[in-house]
């Protein structure tokens, strides 16, 4: 009987050592490469007809584009336009790695905290640099709540600074925890079905129940995959908005 968390094991496909660092190509790396290739292939093939009245695939690609474009426009405004490519790339990467992970025998790269944290940290550092370049020293006024009593300001600044550094952690933990929990839950129900079936006799018929549950949960997982990609992207937009328009 396999453990429900065995699906998250990192397997080294071929070992690689660069300057004393272990940079082996693992199953996680493989699926990250596949995610990138799949999203590029999907978009390239979908917009290939370039028809005035889009077909199904082109419509889907345009819908994704307009969806992210509208999200950037409504959450960041016009100054957000230069950042649209990176936000769209981010959305496609998270969406495709979430969805590819739902295919049986595949691997969910976003179920690894190191992957989501690397993404979130890159966003955090990038957004902070944008704010520093755009506003200079004025950026640090971000941490001083206006209208607070003078005596409380040192205490509040510490809390504001911590709550600023919480951003990359909460961003990465949210995505990682959702994917990890969802896939573990699917595996637990699958294991339950196998266990009941192996009981034999009349009791084996009971394995239909967890099987039905898995069908429902898979639908839920598709929803979670899309929703978490959306939440990840919209929070990036909001952080960018904060950086561009300081209060």
């Amino acid at each position: 009987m396999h453990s429900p968390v065995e699906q998250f094991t990192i397997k080294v496909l071929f070992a690689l050592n660069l300057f004393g660092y272990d940079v082996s190509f693992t199953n996680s790396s493989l699926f990250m490469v596949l995610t990138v290739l799949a999203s590029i292939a999907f978009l390239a093939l979908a917009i290939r007809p370039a028809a005035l009245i889009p077909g199904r695939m082109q419509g889907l690609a345009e819908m994704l584009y307009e969806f992210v474009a509208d999200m950037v426009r409504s959450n960041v405004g016009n100054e957000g336009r230069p950042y649209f490519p990176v936000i769209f790339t981010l959305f496609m990467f998270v969406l495709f790695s979430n969805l590819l992970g739902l295919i049986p025998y595949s691997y969910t790269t976003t179920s690894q905290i190191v992957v989501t944290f690397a993404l979130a940290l890159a966003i955090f550092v990038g957004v902070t640099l944008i704010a520093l370049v755009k506003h200079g020293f004025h950026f640090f006024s971000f941490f001083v709540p206006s209208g607070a009593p003078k005596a409380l300001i040192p205490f509040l600044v510490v809390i504001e600074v911590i709550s600023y550094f919480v951003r990359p952690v909460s961003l990465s933990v949210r995505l990682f925890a959702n994917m990890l929990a969802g896939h573990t839950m699917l595996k637990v129900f699958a294991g339950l079905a196998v266990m009941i079936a192996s009981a034999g006799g009349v009791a084996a018929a009971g394995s239909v129940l967890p099987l039905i549950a898995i069908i429902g949960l898979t639908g839920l997982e598709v929803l979670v995959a899309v929703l978490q990609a959306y939440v990840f992207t919209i929070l990036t937009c909001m952080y960018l908005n904060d950086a561009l328009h300081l209060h």
Partner: protein
Amino acid sequence: MVFFLFSQELLDKKDVRSGAKVADEKSPDKNATPAANTTVSSSLSERISHLEQKHRIADDTPPQATIPQGGMALAGRVSSELVAGLIVGAGSGWVLDRWLDTSPLMLVVMFFLGAVAGMVNVWRAVSGRGMAAGYSDDYETRANKDSSE
């Protein structure tokens, strides 16, 4: 959830674009029908002016960042903010302890400060104040202006 709702809206727009044939099949109470009944040129110029106005509004007003307030998205957000606040607080306290050799003073202090920061973030999430740090005054004035309009 929001994604699917949004895509349905886009599909409706696409129907309008592809002409009157699709619009006729729709029920008359859909807003697609009046646009299809008018002549092509006027509906096009109407749409252009409508879009221009929409973009002008988007250009003029500073965007007010909002997070979807749907139950699932909000629940996930609140729990992760709480956990992340504790992780960052305790983690930075531990690092400070090792650095300043003050174990366990900073760990205890930063743990509680991290918990407070997490709760502040939760309050921000549920009160719809976006992610901005600080309690800037213009939140209230902006909210009042919005309600008066």
